[in-house]
């Protein structure tokens, strides 16, 4: 066997680092070198090489064995033993290699053994991890969500059952398309009391929209909204609503996600409601009680349209329109208490009273449930038994959903990153069953919480259980975090709606009492049962709604969130007295005043001493 050439690279390659550091180029790691240098007769070098090669040891250990075996055979030859005998006496090569490997490993220092064992464990763990990751990668990237339900089709099927003449939306749509666009100046007219100075501009505005108003009143009298769900814009409607803007073409999907459903009609309804409110004020200014009555009834009609599945945003718009109707009526009765007949007031009483539910206004969560369950079926796989895991395809869909909610993971990290990180994310995010169970648990808590009287809830010293649970969701339930609305804020709107309704019904009864007796009652109890079935509740503290006379007119108020009766103390802003923000949380020493209306407080230079002296 010829010794290998001593190239510089080879010398470096086979010299341990500690020898190099000491300046000794030993080539101790080259276990073939001693075999080649031993000059042993044929058969023996090959035998040694085979044995050493079979040992799974470090180069240094192999080199040690090679040197020892060489020395052994050299000694045998020196003693005159024939090479063939030495080879024969050596024994089984495989067994020798195996035993030497095992024995040599035992001679390793304990620290080295510990390191090797740790490395081995780590390696095995890493391999295991890689195997798991590979499995999950395939599972994540090949699984497909099973979009079993078409919520949009289900909703639209319900709409299709409604006869065309019982749907309000087609009339609203035509009215909006034909209406002239609202100017900035016109947008600011709403809520401003009509005076001699602004009458002309308000009158001109209403004249320009006379046809629009006729159609709106007609549509408002129809119980069903009949707005069909779609993920695309109605081009004609879009052109009318956003003149000069380009419509981004979108193809209508057969089964669009509920989150992507467009509700362009809501903005138009707000505008129509403003117009009705302005016309009611203008009619009252002109002494046209019937027109004002029609406008107010139309406003309530707009706020009361029925839909198969209502989303929270639709309900919030309804509440806003209802609030506008109440505010308008309050203003009209403040400025002209004798405007309406007793029959008209009785109609108002019935109509306002029927808004919402008998006690508190209940926010319907059906639309949000549809949105959530639709998102789940689009993101998760489906094992047919209510469980499943995140899917790459689902996360891509999630990106689309997310963009609607302001988050688009793929826009941030790209689809490849989603594919690679998804299998890991999958383990930190709840599976389908867990996610749905958590969602149902929170919703059940929300409903249970909402079923308790507000006055009782306000006495709680800590946040409601559902809110605490929601705050602890962390990153495990991102879909709930994204899609679950801030129910506490939503319910506040419900509270506002309930209290506004109670106050309006009370005000109407007070005016009817006054017309009948030529004086206001000293207590709301006098209104029962002729004008009110019962004194409406101040739901903040579960006592009757507050009432007293102020400057000879009714003062109707609630304690607001602080549950303290401050005698009808209005909110004082730097600009003067105001009642509009009194129900805000965190404020004490003030009440929420419904009547007199906002316009009374706007220009009033509030003097607390004078305020109470007058009463």
């Amino acid at each position: 066997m010829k010794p290998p050439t001593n190239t510089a690279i080879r010398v470096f390659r086979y010299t341990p680092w500690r020898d190099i550091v000491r300046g000794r180029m030993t080539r101790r790691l080259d276990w073939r070198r001693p075999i080649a240098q031993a000059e042993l007769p044929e058969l023996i070098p090959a035998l040694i090489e085979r044995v050493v090669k079979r040992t799974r040891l470090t180069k240094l250990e192999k080199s040690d064995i090679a040197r020892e075996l060489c020395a052994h055979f050299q000694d045998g030859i020196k003693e005159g033993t024939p090479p063939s005998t030495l080879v024969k006496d050596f024994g089984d090569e495989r067994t020798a290699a195996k035993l030497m490997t095992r024995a040599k490993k035992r001679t390793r220092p304990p620290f080295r053994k510990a390191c090797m064992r740790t490395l081995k464990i780590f390696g095995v763990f890493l391999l295991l991890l890689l195997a798991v990751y590979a499995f999950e990668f395939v599972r994540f990237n090949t699984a497909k969500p099973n979009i079993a339900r078409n919520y949009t089709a289900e909703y639209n099927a319900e709409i299709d059952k409604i006869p065309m003449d019982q749907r309000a939306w087609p009339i609203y749509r035509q009215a909006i398309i034909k209406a002239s666009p609202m100017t900035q100046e016109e947008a600011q007219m709403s809520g401003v009391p009509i005076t001699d100075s602004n009458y002309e501009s308000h009158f001109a505005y209403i004249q320009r929209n006379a046809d629009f108003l006729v159609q709106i009143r007609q549509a408002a009298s129809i119980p069903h909204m009949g707005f069909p769900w779609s993920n695309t814009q109605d081009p004609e409607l879009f052109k009318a609503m956003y003149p000069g803007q380009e419509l981004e073409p979108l193809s209508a999907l057969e089964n669009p996600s509920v989150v992507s459903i467009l509700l362009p009609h809501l903005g138009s309804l707000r505008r129509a409601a403003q117009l009705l409110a302005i016309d009611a004020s203008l009619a009252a200014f002109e002494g046209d009680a019937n027109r004002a009555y029609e406008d107010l009834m139309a406003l309530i009609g707009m706020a009361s349209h029925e839909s198969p599945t209502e989303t929270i945003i639709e309900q919030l718009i309804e509440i806003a329109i209802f609030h506008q109707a109440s505010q308008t009526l309050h203003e009209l009765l403040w400025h002209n208490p004798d405007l309406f007949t007793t029959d008209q007031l009785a109609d108002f009483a019935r109509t306002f009273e029927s808004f919402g539910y008998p006690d508190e206004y209940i926010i319907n969560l059906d639309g949000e449930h549809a949105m959530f369950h639709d998102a789940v079926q689009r993101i998760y796989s489906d094992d047919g038994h209510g469980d499943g895991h995140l899917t790459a395809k689902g996360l891509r869909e999630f990106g689309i959903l997310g963009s609607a909610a302001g988050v688009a993971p793929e826009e941030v990290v790209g689809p490849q990153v989603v594919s690679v990180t998804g299998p890991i994310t999958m383990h930190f995010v709840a599976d389908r069953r867990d996610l749905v169970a958590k969602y149902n648990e929170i919703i059940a808590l929300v409903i249970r919480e909402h079923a308790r009287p507000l006055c009782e809830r306000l006495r709680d010293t800590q946040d409601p259980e559902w809110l605490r649970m929601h705050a602890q969701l962390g990153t495990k339930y991102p879909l709930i975090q994204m899609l679950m609305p801030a129910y506490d804020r939503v319910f506040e709107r419900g509270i506002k709606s309930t209290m506004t309704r109670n106050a309006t019904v009370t005000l109407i009864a007070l005016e009817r009492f006054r017309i009948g007796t030529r004086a206001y009652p000293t207590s709301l109890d006098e209104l029962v049962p002729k004008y009110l079935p019962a004194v409406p509740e101040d739901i903040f503290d579960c006592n009757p709604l507050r009432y007293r006379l102020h400057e000879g007119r009714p003062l109707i108020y609630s304690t607001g969130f602080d549950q303290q009766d401050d005698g009808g103390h209005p909110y004082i802003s730097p600009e003067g007295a105001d009642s509009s923000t009194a129900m805000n949380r965190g404020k004490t020493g003030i009440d929420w005043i419904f009547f007199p209306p906002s316009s009374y407080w706007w220009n009033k230079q509030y003097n607390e001493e004078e305020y109470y002296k007058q009463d």
Partner: protein
Amino acid sequence: MRIERELMRGAGPVAVLKLLERGEMYGYELVEALSKRTEGVLDMGQSTLYPLLYNLEAKGLVKGVWRAADSGRDRKYYRLTVKGKRKLASDTRQWRAVTQAMESLGVIAGAPAPQVSPA
């Protein structure tokens, strides 16, 4: 006579330790000595001897040192350590007890007790 593997596994190490008791020896020398002094009974191929030596080395019973021989070639010489000497003494006592037990059972008849130097 060929000794069965299990028996050799027990006898081999103590035999090697015993040989090294007199002084250091290298591999080939040990193979030869074992063969000659036991008349081939404890004849051990290299495939058995070297793993055995490495095991003894791992247990700290022997120590191997590379040194140049008179011929100028490097050889690895093995010698007993203090721990090895204690182990040899202990093993000798055990083997003696086993031999006596075997003798009393008639497995071996009147075999002379081996001479063991104190540890």
